């Protein structure tokens, strides 16, 4: 009963419909946008369609329990198939099959017959050795009519098929281990930030991030400099992490994942200052946050005291605030002072260069632009199941190659007594390759046997 159940689980009647079901489920995961907010489904697909999507979990299909169940059934099928069909075919492959008589060999699509000098025993042994040298497993079966030699090639196809099935299990095991014991998250680093990783004795510090551009202004690289620190804060190694060039250290990998502008900060701002009595274009100056800059004139300094990336006035408090972290409406608060005397103080905006305050002392400042201060998004991941995935890749690749490109070849050679110290050799062959493809190899093998027998007879 159990054996029948295992046979059924591992049968093609289960695997083909199962593959079709998984295909359709995966297809729905491609068609239905994944991971959107629920409200967005109702907005874009009003009515019963969005209800079906949400209730069946089609919005996150690849992490639904029933998709895991389908994958689980597939895994069980692969195990059952490996235990039944694969092991059986491997065992059967080791069995020696003999034909009844030379006529059976002659009926095969690839067959030939020729005479050779010598007695049955000598010729049979010569043929056996010649075939063994070509890595064929040979078994002799003498009887009253002569000797039959069954020669079979290495059963690489069966081994390949078993490896293919095992590789799927390796993928499963790797995936399960990584899901259960691994970790994956994105950490946003500002320059100087230090982060810890769960169950990892080291810490990692970001020493900087830059976006490199080519002459045309297109992004050519994102580079984060990361330093691994020991538990006592000693520097262990420093690496510039780029997309495709992660930092791997002691089982944890750090990938360049994303970047963005830091809210409330910038590297350097460009400002156009109009002083009383200066020409109509004013003069350009650069300033950093909270770093006073000397302006022309006696003890006149300019300081940017605040930066807001998406400026609004909060209606309740009446204070300046940021609506979001996005640089939708960048603004800086600038003050120009001379000793204790404030010559200018006010907000100025990149998007609205004409909207600025003009002080009673005749100063005016326009916020021309700024070089943003970026944070870098580093994906931190630990995948203890990865070695299994690599085994899976290797097994499946080898398995496919063995299945497709190393076909079976079986030869049956009958050596029967002929006239005057001659024997009649009848050779029949079969292969899992097509007859036409095998015919060339068969002819070559037979010619080679004839040559070996001729040389053996001379010596």
């Amino acid at each position, binding site marked *: 009963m159990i054996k029948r159940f295992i046979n059924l689980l591992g049968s*093609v009647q289960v695997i083909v419909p199962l593959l079709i079901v*998984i295909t359709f489920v*995966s297809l729905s995961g491609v068609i239905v946008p994944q991971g959107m907010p629920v409200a967005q489904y109702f907005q874009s697909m009003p009515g019963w369609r969005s209800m079906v999507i949400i209730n069946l979990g089609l919005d996150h299909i*690849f992490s639904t329990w029933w998709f895991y169940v389908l994958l689980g059934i597939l895994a069980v099928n692969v195990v059952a198939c490996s235990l039944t069909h694969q092991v059986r075919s491997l065992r059967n492959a080791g069995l020696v099959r003999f034909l009844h008589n030379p006529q059976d060999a002659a009926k095969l699509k690839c067959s030939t017959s020729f005479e050779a000098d010598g007695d049955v025993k000598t010729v049979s042994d010569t043929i056996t050795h010649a075939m063994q040298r070509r890595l064929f497993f040979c078994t002799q079966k003498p009887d009253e009519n002569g000797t039959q030699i069954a020669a079979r090639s290495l059963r690489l196809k069966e081994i390949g098929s078993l490896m293919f099935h095992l590789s799927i299990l390796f993928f499963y095991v790797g995936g399960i281990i990584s899901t259960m014991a691994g970790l994956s998250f994105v950490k946003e680093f500002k320059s100087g930030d230090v982060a810890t990783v769960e169950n990892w004795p080291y810490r990692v510090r970001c020493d900087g991030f830059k976006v490199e551009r080519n002459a*045309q202004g*297109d*992004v050519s690289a994102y580079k984060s400099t990361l330093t691994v620190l020991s538990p006592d804060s000693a520097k262990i190694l420093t690496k510039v992490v780029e997309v495709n060039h992660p930092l791997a250290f002691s089982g944890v990998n750090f990938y360049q994942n994303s970047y963005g502008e830091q809210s409330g900060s910038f590297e350097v701002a460009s400002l156009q200052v109009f002083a009383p009595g200066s020409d109509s274009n004013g003069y350009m100056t650069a300033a950093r946050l909270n770093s006073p800059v000397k302006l022309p004139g006696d003890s006149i300094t300019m300081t940017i005291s605040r930066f807001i990336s998406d400026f609004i006035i909060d209606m309740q408090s009446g204070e300046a605030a940021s609506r979001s972290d996005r640089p939708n409406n960048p603004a800086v608060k600038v003050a120009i002072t001379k000793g204790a005397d404030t010559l200018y103080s006010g907000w100025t905006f990149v998007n609205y260069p004409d909207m600025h305050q003009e002080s009673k002392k005749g100063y005016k400042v326009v916020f021309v632009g700024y070089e943003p201060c970026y944070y870098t998004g580093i994906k931190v991941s630990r995948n203890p199941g*990865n070695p299994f995935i690599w085994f899976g890749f290797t097994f499946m690749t080898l398995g496919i190659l063995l299945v497709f490109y190393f076909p079976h070849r079986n030869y049956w050679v009958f050596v029967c007594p002929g006239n005057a110290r001659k024997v009649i050799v009848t050779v029949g062959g079969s292969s899992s390759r*097509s007859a036409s493809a095998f015919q060339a190899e068969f002819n070559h093998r037979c010619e080679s046997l004839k040559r070996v027998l001729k040389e053996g007879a001379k010596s």
Partner: protein
Amino acid sequence: MNILSQQNIEFTFFWWAFIAYSASCVFYVAYFPLSKKWIATSASIAMGLGLLMQTLAMVERTIHIHHMPLTNMFEYISLFAWFATCFYFIFMRIYKLHLLGAVIAFTVFMLMVAGSLLPKDAEMQLVPALQSYWLQIHVSVASLGEAAFLVAFAANILYFLKNGLSKTSRFASRLPDVQTLDRIAYKAITVGYPLFTIGALFAGAIWAEQAWGSFWSWDPKEVGSLIVWLIYSAYLHARFVKGWTGTRAAVLSATAFTCTLLTFFANLILGGLHAYG
């Protein structure tokens, strides 16, 4: 030589290739009723000229952009058509079936039509995610596998024609027997399946792990490729274990190739991690 004139030379080669492939189709259309060997030979010569022109276009583009042209849909479809034409010559040499060649030539021509409608702007600066030697391995091997699937699809088309037409039909009598067509489709799949598995799935997964930190992300293109792989796996499994040949096998194989095309064009609609151009 400035960039614009280099691009003009490349497009000139592309359009000459387009014309050569369309000429090949015209010859094959004439070959159907007339069945003259010289017409089929002319079609093959036109395919050869098309291949040469397309090779020159791709080399010119590579010189122009300083990296292999594998980053957008136009470049991929050009490579796909180029590999399919290479397979055309390989299978024509082995099987010498002009009608199979005709179907491949038509499919290549359709790919060129699709390519001609896509934006052809060259990406001079590769985005950081694509700056990896895995780009060449992943894209070219996957494309080579899909080109082999195209040959199987061409054999499937002829199979359906042979089965669908009356046995007394003159055209049906000129088609190869169904066993030969079934065997050609199978042979092409045995070439394409390992290439697709290694190129599209494994190389892609290894690259994804290196670039994004996970082998698999359930991205639409990844899922599409998995679907294609599952259908071809079902085809091979059914063939090995249950001895499926003939119509059922041809339907599975043709479905898989249709999914291959859908997966390719899905980028235009679904976006995702593979939407580079």
